[in-house]
């Protein structure tokens, strides 16, 4: 494990990281790099696969999460893994999603090296596209302070903004950003990747302290977030919460963890003959259409919550602006605690619903 600093060139963080990634392609160490790249209009940014170093225009700190890079790696590798070396730059929530997808056999990390970047948070798409003030969203987010008020709620109460399960970490915490970016090579693959790149020594202790502080403050925000939402409980509040749901299933489509090739709720399982619907109306007195909105949400929680990485893409995708994180974060917190499971912690770990212990939950079934 080496903790070093990548000196900033021309006073510009974007150029510095971009040059590093260009170098990887030029040296032939990797055939392609996947990293966030701004669209020409500057209104958006997407994970972009680049193999021509001249076309490399990455902005790895672009504060936007249009899709999860985890999902994109799954799309790219799930048919068959890569023969050629690929480097992927991602944030911690994307890293966690990718680890969960690996466990689900939906992503193949053969010949893939991961570079994780510290993530100070992201903005909703519309805020990013027409960012208020003179600064670019990237400048604003790296400066901190003011920018927080525009951030997505999922980011404000982020579980862990520092990526863990990666080969190399590019850090912004614990270093002077005018001088350099923190670099931590954590694996042999990471070591090899950065071989020959000029790095300078830095104060590892300052980094450890800074990361600890960031995690502590995020934990506090998250605990307060959960506390403040503890009254969203009971049938009245929960039905009210989902009152504006139009049953579009966008949350499921945006979710990096919703892994089924075809969702049960997109199938015809719940399509009944007209007589059954009339019988239901006679039975209940009345019912709203589309049916099964609540059933969809609660079932979705049951299927994905243990692997939920709290990226907030579901909330971002909702056309009715339902603040889904308000209930997802508390549910994820409690459920993951029950099974002592943290998504993304370890790619070798088994998913809780496919394993069991004989001596657990022994009161269930007897009383």
């Amino acid at each position: 494990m080496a903790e070093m600093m990548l000196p900033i060139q021309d006073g510009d963080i974007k150029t510095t990281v971009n040059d590093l990634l260009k170098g990887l392609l030029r040296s032939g160490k990797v055939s392609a790099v996947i990293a966030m790249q701004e669209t020409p209009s500057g209104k958006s940014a997407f994970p972009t696969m680049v193999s021509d170093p001249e076309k490399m225009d990455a902005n790895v700190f672009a504060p936007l999460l249009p899709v999860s890079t985890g999902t994109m790696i799954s799309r790219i590798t799930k048919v068959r893994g890569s023969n050629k070396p690929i480097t992927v730059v991602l944030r911690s929530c994307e890293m966690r999603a990718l680890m969960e997808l690996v466990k689900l056999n939906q992503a193949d990390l053969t010949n893939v090296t991961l570079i994780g970047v510290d993530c100070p948070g992201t903005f909703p798409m519309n805020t990013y596209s027409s960012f208020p003030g003179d600064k670019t969203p990237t400048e604003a987010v790296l400066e901190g302070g003011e920018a927080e008020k525009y951030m997505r709620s999922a980011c404000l109460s982020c579980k862990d903004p520092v990526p863990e399960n990666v080969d190399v970490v590019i850090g912004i915490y614990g270093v002077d950003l005018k001088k350099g970016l923190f670099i931590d090579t954590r694996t042999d693959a990471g070591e090899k990747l950065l071989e020959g790149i000029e790095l300078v020594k830095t104060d590892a202790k300052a980094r450890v302290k800074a990361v600890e502080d960031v995690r502590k403050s995020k934990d506090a925000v998250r605990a307060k977030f959960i506390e403040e939402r503890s009254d969203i409980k009971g049938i009245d509040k929960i039905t009210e919460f989902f009152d504006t749901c139009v049953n579009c299933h966008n949350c499921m489509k945006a979710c990096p963890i919703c892994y089924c090739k075809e969702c049960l709720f997109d199938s015809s399982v719940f399509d009944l003959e007209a007589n059954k619907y009339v019988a239901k109306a006679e039975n209940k007195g009345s019912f709203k259409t589309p049916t099964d909105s609540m059933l969809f949400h609660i079932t979705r929680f049951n299927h994905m919550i243990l692997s939920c990485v709290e990226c907030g893409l579901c909330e971002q995708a909702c056309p009715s602006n339902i603040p889904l994180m308000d209930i997802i974060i508390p549910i994820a917190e409690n459920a993951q605690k029950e099974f002592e499971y943290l998504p993304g912690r370890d790619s070798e770990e088994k998913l809780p619903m496919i394993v069991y212990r004989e001596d657990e939950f022994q009161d269930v079934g007897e009383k």
Partner: protein
Amino acid sequence: MSEEFEPKIVGFLCNWCSYAGADLAGTSRIQYPSNIRVIRVMCSGSVDTVYVNRALLEGADAVLIGGCHPGDCHYLNGNYKARRRMVLMKNILETLGLEPERIWVRWISASEGQKFADTVKEIVERTKEMGPNPMGKRWNV
């Protein structure tokens, strides 16, 4: 005042143990309340939470998942998996404040006709205390 509330209970019983236990209760002429509607499944481990949820959202007052005793599963470990799944489901309903106590998990073997009858009696009694499932009358779920 209307007549006494009679709970509707949906029971998912595994083919190899709990369903046979219910069958034994019947053939042994053990009396138990008729509030339960039994659905035979091959294994308690095959009961996805969507079925339990649907029963509750459609207004079932209680749901019973019956499986073989731990260690006795016909498919070796289906009931252990069912146990985890139901723990998760109850945990989620608990956080949402949606009455997880309406879900019952019981291990009933093929020879336990009496236990099946007692279980149904117990569920009916407790559910009568709880009152009807408020989801039943909701039109907007």
